[in-house]
């Protein structure tokens, strides 16, 4: 378990300076923290693929972007990932809350909870299941991998890890 503000500070230490997303309860502390930073630091997107579009534009204009979403948004994001990010080879950190992990959640989360990491594997997006014990290492790995490979990279966030 770690405080959301510490998570945000680790992201900022790695140079992340453009945030967009659609909130989830697992990420509510992170979103609150980003919203308090300053105006338009975190952009409230209407859909997850729209957040990815903004992040891609911001990357091409010199920013280091991160997109926050519930794993349901991974479904919404598939075309943006495959026909924008993976062909133009642009990096982005995907901070994805893992609803339905282990089959314990509301019914609407169970299928995506089971398959979300398989989807990432299918489209060759590197990911790690985020651990608060090795938080700094995970975030550094994500930042280095996305910049080095020019790819989106995901950190999967389970319930109760960020408070």
């Amino acid at each position, binding site marked *: 378990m770690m405080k959301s503000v510490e998570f945000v500070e680790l992201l900022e230490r790695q140079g992340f300076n453009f945030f967009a997303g659609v909130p989830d309860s697992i990420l509510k502390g992170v979103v609150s923290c980003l919203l308090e930073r300053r105006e338009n630091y975190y952009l409230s997107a209407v859909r997850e693929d729209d957040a990815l*579009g*903004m992040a891609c*534009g911001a990357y*091409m204009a010199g920013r280091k972007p991160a997109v926050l979403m519930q794993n349901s948004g991974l479904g919404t994001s598939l*075309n943006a990932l495959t026909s*924008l990010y993976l062909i133009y*080879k642009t990096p982005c950190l995907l901070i994805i809350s893992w609803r339905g992990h282990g089959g314990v959640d509301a019914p609407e989360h169970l299928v995506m909870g089971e398959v979300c990491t398989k989807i990432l594997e299918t489209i060759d997006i590197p990911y790690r299941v985020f651990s608060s014990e090795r938080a700094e290492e995970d975030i550094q790995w994500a930042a280095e991998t996305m910049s080095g490979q020019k790819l989106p990279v995901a950190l999967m966030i389970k319930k109760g890890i960020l408070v």
Partner: protein
Amino acid sequence: MKRQEAIETVLRLLTNELVIHCNGMVSREAFNTLDRPENFYMIGSMGLTASLALGVALARPDRKVMAFDGDGGVLMNLGTLAEVGSIKPKNLFHLCFDNGVYGSTGNQPTLARTVDLDQMARSAGYRIVERVNEKTALEKAVKTLREKDGPVFLLIKVVPEEKYETAGRVTLSPEEIRDRFMAAVGRQA
């Protein structure tokens, strides 16, 4: 006015404006008419033209950023209008070439035939919303509007092609489009 003529009219008036072109015929016609490093051709990801332009505009408030969208593209992600209208970036200019059809897939009708996209942009909070349907008015609108604070939504009514469209594809690779555009963004305004 056909879309190709409208695209050419706008492109010829530009200087160093950054332009995100939507997928399909808009990208193809722009590429074949007046290719420039400031043109980003979004060859896939339909619906995300304004999202990309918004990201560029927010990251570089010192540069003028345009989205060349289509009616099908705007309709696919209508929520983005609300986003632009609420964030209100002054340097964002959203142009919609509205021919009422999905041109690159065989002219199937879009809902823009019955829904006024300019009214939707106005409701969403764009600062300036205008509609034009002929070349002289388009030239005048672009010259005037680009000196104003955005976000601007310019609905450009064009007539669809009668035959299936065959403009050549963008021959640059996606990575070439990206690198060239990033270099153009990096230049001072």
